[in-house]
């Protein structure tokens, strides 16, 4: 799988373009939900041919989840938005390298995660973290409060911020896993995305939720 930034994930192998008509070899870790759904594969095929509207449907379908987990990982709404946008643009440009071995959402999320990690490293180098974006910083939601159109939306935002304060006390890996899980990613999707086993995801979740409960109580 290509991580979207030119680096190959896993062992180097002969590049095979994704073809939904060809049955891919299924390993023990693969499940039916790992593969691209027929409707989604049709959209991907159209997008590969330059159909931006088809890719727009994929954006509508997955953008919220991608931006959602980036909010927690990146701790900044604007940064999350930028990284999500960059990830989708990179995905569109490198659709030919998408082999369909994982779901499209997992693939684009991996690109997004690389993007946000890269920016974090760059910020560290530039010393910007001293401006309040440390490892345990909370999500900057000031810009979101101004976007909240109703009291319900504001209340939902505040409730999520409570949870975010609990997430802020987690380690980087714990926070990534919890953020992905919260956005509805399946355990095997998280394992594939982070390159770890499903058992590690489960045990990390166990530790992470215990810490979160302690911080919330």
């Amino acid at each position, binding site marked *: 799988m290509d991580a979207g930034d030119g680096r190959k994930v896993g062992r180097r192998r002969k590049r095979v373009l994704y073809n939904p008509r060809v049955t891919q070899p299924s390993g023990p870790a693969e499940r039916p939900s790992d593969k691209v759904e027929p409707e989604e594969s049709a959209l991907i095929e159209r997008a590969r041919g330059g159909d931006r509207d088809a890719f727009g449907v994929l*954006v*509508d379908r997955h953008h919220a989840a991608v931006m*959602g987990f980036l909010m927690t990982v990146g701790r900044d709404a604007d940064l999350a*938005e930028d990284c999500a946008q960059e990830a989708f643009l990179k995905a*569109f440009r490198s659709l030919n390298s998408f082999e369909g071995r994982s779901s499209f959402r997992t693939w684009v999320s991996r690109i997004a995660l690389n993007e946000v990690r890269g920016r974090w490293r760059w910020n560290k180098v530039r010393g910007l973290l001293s401006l309040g974006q440390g490892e345990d910083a909370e999500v900057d939601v000031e810009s979101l409060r101004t*976007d909240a159109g109703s009291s319900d939306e504001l209340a939902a*935002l505040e*409730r999520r911020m409570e949870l975010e304060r609990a997430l802020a006390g987690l380690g980087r890996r714990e926070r990534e896993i919890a953020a992905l899980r919260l*956005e509805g990613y399946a355990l095997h999707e998280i394992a594939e995305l982070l390159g770890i086993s499903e058992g590690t995801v489960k045990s990390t979740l166990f530790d992470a939720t215990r810490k979160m409960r302690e911080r919330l109580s």
Partner: protein
Amino acid sequence: MNHAAPERCRTDLVELWALWPRTEIPSALAARLDACPACREEKAAFAALGARSRPWSEALPARRRRRAAEAVKRALTARTAPRPAVWAPAVAFAAALLVALWSYRVPDVTVAPWRAAPPPRELLERRDLLEHLDLLQNWDQARALAGEGAQ
């Protein structure tokens, strides 16, 4: 509170928390958890945290969510569409400027100095002097040597 069978309970609890943020528990797992008082407490904590857990995709204000997705689609069109050749006039102007400068400089570069300012006729007539230019250049030194000899 102690667990009835610590190892078995831990396995069940890892399975339980792997379900988070969902709140439904498979009946078989729920039955095992209910058998242990400490696990029952964990089950209640699981339900409580699940109730407080909400994804950003739901908590983000709808306006922001829509705006962010639209921005991606706009960027997709802007960055992948052929860009208008806004640089073409600038390149044409720069090329014209270079040609003009070159044309202006051509006479200075190509005309030989002796054509621009020919040497005096009398100097050319003294060809014998030119052939022994090195001697003329050392004339002062030779004269000085000659003076020392005479003394």
